[in-house]
């Protein structure tokens, strides 16, 4: 039991956070709870503190919408929060799509797709291009372009406000990640993930690799949804500083050799 907790502690915590947040939002809509109202695009905490998706706010700006102070404050709070803690903490600790893509990835590993198709036929920098494209299209079309197709919004709205055909979007992502591209949505396409990766470039919570303890079992690279950020495994002791790291903690918990741990970013560069 103890080792189960050790091996899944972050996963369990993440699912708890994700589900609790969705439950609070759901209760906000259905039972009138005040804790968290709205959804991940914009919400209010206890009816006082505004929170807003900064990427949506940015698209609104490009679409030529009037921007209210409420929105700016909300977007700033979110930006600072994730900017400090780790941009893509949103992806692995909050975003409900993460549960879908993790499930697809889990199946891929179990079925052994990853052994058959080792090299992925797409670039992970695609998401930054899509992020740019979202802004360009928002400007051209005069609407928040990504918000009208975002499967993330579709999913959390489906959970909070009712499903509609929202299940189709979820299924598409699941199948895409399962059969077409490993970590396809979250790791290659999602512009929101790209946006948070950009915000969190200098964030403070970072995974630290201690090469001396490493036995090169490569379990961490196998579970990591952004395995390219773990390039230093068994090579050098350093922190995972790539913004694409989602701080999901899977690598930390699968490591049996205490070679990976959460740490605070070293601000001054150490000399070797």
């Amino acid at each position, binding site marked *: 039991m103890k080792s189960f907790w050790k091996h899944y502690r972050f996963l369990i915590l993440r699912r708890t956070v994700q589900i609790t947040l969705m439950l609070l939002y759901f209760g906000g809509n259905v039972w009138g709870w005040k804790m968290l109202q709205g959804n991940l695009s914009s919400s209010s905490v206890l009816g006082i503190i505004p929170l807003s998706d900064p990427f949506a706010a940015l698209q609104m700006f490009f679409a030529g919408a009037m921007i*209210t102070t409420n929105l700016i404050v909300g977007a700033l709070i979110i930006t600072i929060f994730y900017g400090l803690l780790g941009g893509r903490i949103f992806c692995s600790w909050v975003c409900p799509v993460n549960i879908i893509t993790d499930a697809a990835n889990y199946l891929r590993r179990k079925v052994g797709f990853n052994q058959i198709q080792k090299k992925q036929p797409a670039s992970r920098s695609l998401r930054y291009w899509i992020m740019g*494209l979202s802004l360009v299209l928002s400007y051209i079309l005069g609407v928040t372009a990504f918000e009208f*197709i975002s499967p993330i919004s579709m999913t959390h*709205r*489906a959970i909070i*406000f009712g499903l509609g055909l929202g299940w189709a979007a979820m299924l598409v992502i699941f199948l895409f990640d399962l059969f077409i591209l490993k970590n396809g949505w979250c790791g290659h396409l999602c512009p929101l993930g790209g946006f948070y990766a950009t915000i969190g470039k200098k964030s403070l919570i970072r995974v630290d690799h201690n090469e001396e303890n490493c036995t090169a079992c490569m379990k961490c690279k196998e579970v990591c949804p952004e395995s390219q950020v773990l390039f230093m495994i068994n090579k050098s002791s350093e922190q995972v500083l790539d913004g694409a790291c989602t701080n999901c903690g899977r690598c930390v918990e699968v490591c049996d050799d205490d070679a990976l741990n959460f740490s605070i970013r070293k601000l001054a560069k150490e000399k070797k």
Partner: protein
Amino acid sequence: MVSERRKFILGSVRSAGLLALGGLVWSAYVDEVTASKLILRPPGAIKEKDFLATCIKCGMCVEACPYDTLVLAKPGENKPLGTPYFEPRNIPCYMCTDIPCVPVCPTGALDEKSVSTDGKLDINKSRMGVAVVDTKNCIAFWGIQCDACYRACPLLDEAISLQYDKNSRTGKHAFLKPIVDSDICTGCGLCEHACVTKEAAIKVFPREVVLGKVGDFYVKGWDKKDQQRLKNAKEIKTKTRLSEKKALDNLNSFNLEDF
């Protein structure tokens, strides 16, 4: 041999092509879903075009609505995804005097000022749409007595009034015809909800879909205030080229054999 330069050029062109393809499909889709004009927005909603740019789709208006009137457009409903709307035949807007849906809007897509008089919320100022009567299928226009919409209207005798006309078919009855005053109608849809016919004979549509626009060339000559609008009317110069020939020549040039 394939040089690095060639690979790079091919790679760049391929990415650019992919991006252009994705962008085109993407914008075509967004253009398509945002083109739907027949959608009724919550009270205080700004112009549809601005609304689509400003609404962040958080659903706080939906949560604030005590009657579950407002819903967010779900995938498959062919409406701008995630934006709030209502269908009065299902649940109309009950015109809460404290308008809970408007002040909660974080982005100003629902504008408090547009539904306020002297700084106080005033739901009667909302313009969600306008009711239109189908005079062929409204049974009151047949001469059957029905005033369901008239009675349901929260601005009774203002937004909908009854026009009494003689029923010449019977010679001794009156038509009580419901007439909508589009200046006063808020588009709440209580009339559409109350209508007794199988498919409502009075329906609410977005104002810009239904209402015409006179322009500045027609004014009410008996109304001094309305005449002021003439000032805005800019002269339109139409040029008709005159024939250089004299009229007589024109007649004389006919070749009679042509007729």
